[in-house]
C-alpha cells in the first residue's frame, strides 16, 4: 500500500468520532467482519487507528478504497430550519427560565433572532434585546452589541449546538453596517471579474488628473503620481470598499529609537497605548490617503490588511 494512501486513510479515520467508527467502517465494507472483530475499539484512538491501518495494509487498500471512505465520512450539513429554531429556543429556555426568543426568516437564507433576557427570578427585559443574524449552512452569525456579558457564553452555546458546529469563536470585526460585515466575512466585496465578455478592459485607468488641462501645463511629478495611483489600485482594487467606522490598535511594544541612550528605549517593560482611527467610511478614507499626498504609498500593511484579515481590532505585541 502506498504511503500516501496510508496517510490519507489514517487522517480520514482520525476525523471520525469513536462512537460512529464501527457504523462507518461497516458502511465502507472494505474490511471484513472477521478483521473488524479483531480490533479493540475501547482503547485509545491512536491505537485503534494504528490497528485499522495495519488491517488496510493487509488487504492492500487502494486510492479508490480510500476515496470511498472519504465520501462516506463527509460531514454533510443538512440544515433544517425547524430543528434549528427548536433546538436554539430549548437551550436558552432550559438555562434561563425567563427568556423571549423570536425568529424571522428572510430571503437570503438568513434567520433573524431576537432575544429578550431575563434571569431565574426576573422577567425578560424587552427594552434591551439582543439581535442575532444567522446565515444557515455557513459558520457565521452576526450579533448586536447590546448583550450583557453574562449572557454571551450562553448565546454562543445555543448557536453552536443548534447549528451543529463544534465551537464558536468571536471575531474582532465590528461595524454598524451588517451588509459591510457580510461582505468582509464572506469575502464578497470584490465581485468584478475579468471575463472575455467584459466591455471595458481592466487595463484602462483614469489617472484622476485633469486630462483637459492646458497643454502648456505639465505635471513635474507625473511619474510619482502614476506610481502612487498604481499601488493604490493594486492594494484597494477598483470596487467600492465595505463600510467600517473604526480601526483600533492596542500596542504593547517596546519603544524603538535610533538615538542611543534614550530614556524610553531603556525601559524593560513594553509601552501600552491605544490608537483608534475613526471615519464615516474608514476604508475609503485609507484608500484616498496616498493619492491625496497625506501618506506614502504603499500604506502600512496593518491598515491595508483589514478586509483581508477580517478584523478591525488588533493587538500588537513584539514577537
Amino acid at each position: 500500500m502506498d504511503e500516501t494512501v496510508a496517510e490519507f486513510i489514517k487522517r480520514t479515520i482520525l476525523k471520525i468520532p469513536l462512537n460512529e467508527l464501527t457504523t462507518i467502517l461497516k458502511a465502507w465494507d472494505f474490511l471484513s467482519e472477521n478483521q473488524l472483530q479483531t480490533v479493540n475499539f475501547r482503547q485509545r484512538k491512536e491505537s485503534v487507528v494504528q490497528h485499522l491501518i495495519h488491517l488496510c495494509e493487509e488487504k492492500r487498500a487502494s486510492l479508490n478504497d480510500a476515496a470511498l471512505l472519504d465520501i462516506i465520512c463527509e460531514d454533510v450539513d443538512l440544515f433544517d430550519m425547524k430543528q434549528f429554531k427548536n433546538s436554539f429556543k430549548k437551550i436558552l429556555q432550559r438555562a434561563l427560565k425567563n427568556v423571549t426568543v423570536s425568529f424571522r426568516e428572510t430571503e437570503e437564507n438568513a434567520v433573524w433572532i431576537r432575544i429578550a433576557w431575563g434571569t431565574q427570578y426576573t422577567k425578560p427585559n424587552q427594552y434591551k434585546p439582543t439581535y442575532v443574524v444567522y446565515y444557515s449552512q455557513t459558520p457565521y452569525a452576526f450579533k448586536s452589541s447590546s448583550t450583557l456579558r453574562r449572557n454571551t457564553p450562553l448565546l454562543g452555546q445555543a448557536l453552536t449546538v443548534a447549528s451543529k458546529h463544534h465551537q464558536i469563536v468571536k471575531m474582532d470585526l465590528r461595524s454598524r453596517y451588517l451588509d459591510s460585515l457580510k461582505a468582509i466575512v464572506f469575502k464578497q466585496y470584490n465581485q468584478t471579474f475579468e471575463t472575455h465578455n467584459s466591455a471595458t478592459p481592466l487595463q484602462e485607468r483614469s489617472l484622476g488628473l485633469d486630462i483637459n488641462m492646458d497643454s502648456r501645463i505639465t505635471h513635474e511629478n507625473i511619474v510619482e503620481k502614476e506610481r502612487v495611483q498604481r499601488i493604490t489600485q493594486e492594494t484597494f482594487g477598483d470596487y467600492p470598499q465595505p463600510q467600517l467606522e473604526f480601526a483600533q490598535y492596542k500596542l504593547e511594544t517596546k519603544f524603538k529609537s535610533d538615538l542611543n541612550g534614550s530614556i524610553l528605549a531603556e525601559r524593560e517593560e513594553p509601552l501600552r497605548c491605544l490608537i483608534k482611527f475613526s471615519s464615516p467610511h474608514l476604508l475609503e478614507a485609507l484608500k484616498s490617503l496616498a493619492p491625496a499626498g497625506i501618506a506614502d504609498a504603499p500604506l502600512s500593511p496593518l491598515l491595508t490588511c483589514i478586509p483581508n484579515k477580517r478584523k478591525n481590532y488588533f493587538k500588537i505585541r513584539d514577537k
Partner: protein
Amino acid sequence: MAGILAPGLGVLAHLERLENQMSRSRKQSEEPQSVQAQERVLGTKIQKLRHLRDDLKAAVRHRRGSVKACIANVEPNQIVEVNEQEALEEKLENVKAVLQAYHFTGLSGKLTSRGVCVCINTAFEGNLLDSYFVDLVIQKPLRIHHHSVPVFIPLEEIAAKYLQTNIQHFLFSLCEYLNAYSGRKYQADRLQSDFAALLTGPLQRNPLCNLLSFTYKLDPGGQSFPFCARLLYKDLTATLPTDVTVTCQGGEALSSSWEEQRASHETLFCTKPLHQVFASFARREKLDMSLVS
C-alpha cells in the same frame, strides 16, 4: 650681359635658362586658356544636368497629378480598402463569438496580470444556469484572490485538499459541487414556480437545497389527503436525493391503494428530478380529468 663670353658652359647654360623661362611663361599663358576651355565644358555640362533635373521634376509632378486624377475618377481602390476593413471586423466578431461560446463548455478562463480568472458556468438538463468565478493568483503557494462562490459551498475544504497538489482536480471538484447545487436549486425553483397548484403549503428549503420538505396533493381541490415529502440530498455532488420519505397526512391507516401510491411516489422522487415528477403528476391529473368528463 656683362662678362666675357666663356666658351661652352656659361653661355649655353644661360641660353638654356632663358629658353626654359620662355617655355614656362608660354605655358602659363596657355593654361588659362585650357582652364577656360574646361570651364566652358563644365558649364555646358551643368546646364545640361539642370535641364535634365527640371525635366525629371516636371515628369514626377505630372505622374502624381495623373494618379490623383485616377483615384478621383475611378472607385476600385477605395472598395479594396473597405473590404479589408470589413474582413477584419468579421474576424473580430468571430473571435468574440468563439470566446463567448467557451461558456457552453462549462469551464473557461482568462489570463489576468496575476494569474487566471476561472469561470464556471453551471447547467442542468441542457439549461444554462448561474456562473461563478474564481480568481487565482499564480504564486507559490497558489492562492485564491477572490471569488463569487456562495458561502455554503465548501470551497475552503476543496482548496485545502487539492489546490496545491492537483489544480485540475480542484477545478473539477468545484465544478461538481456547483453544478449539483445549481441543479438542485433549479429543481426547487421549478417546483415552486410551475407546480404551485399541486402544493398545499410552502416549500421548505435550505441554502444548499439539500433538504426539501413539502406537502402536495394529486388532485388539488379534491377530497384526497395530502402527501408529505422529505427529500435529503446527502451527496452534495448529486442532483437526485439519497433519502426520500413520503407520508400521508391523513393520520389514519392507509388503504392499500394509497400505500401503493405512497411507495411509488417515494421511488419516483429517488429516480427522477423533482420537477419532472410533478410534471408527470400534472399529466396524470389531466388524463384523469379527461377520462372523468
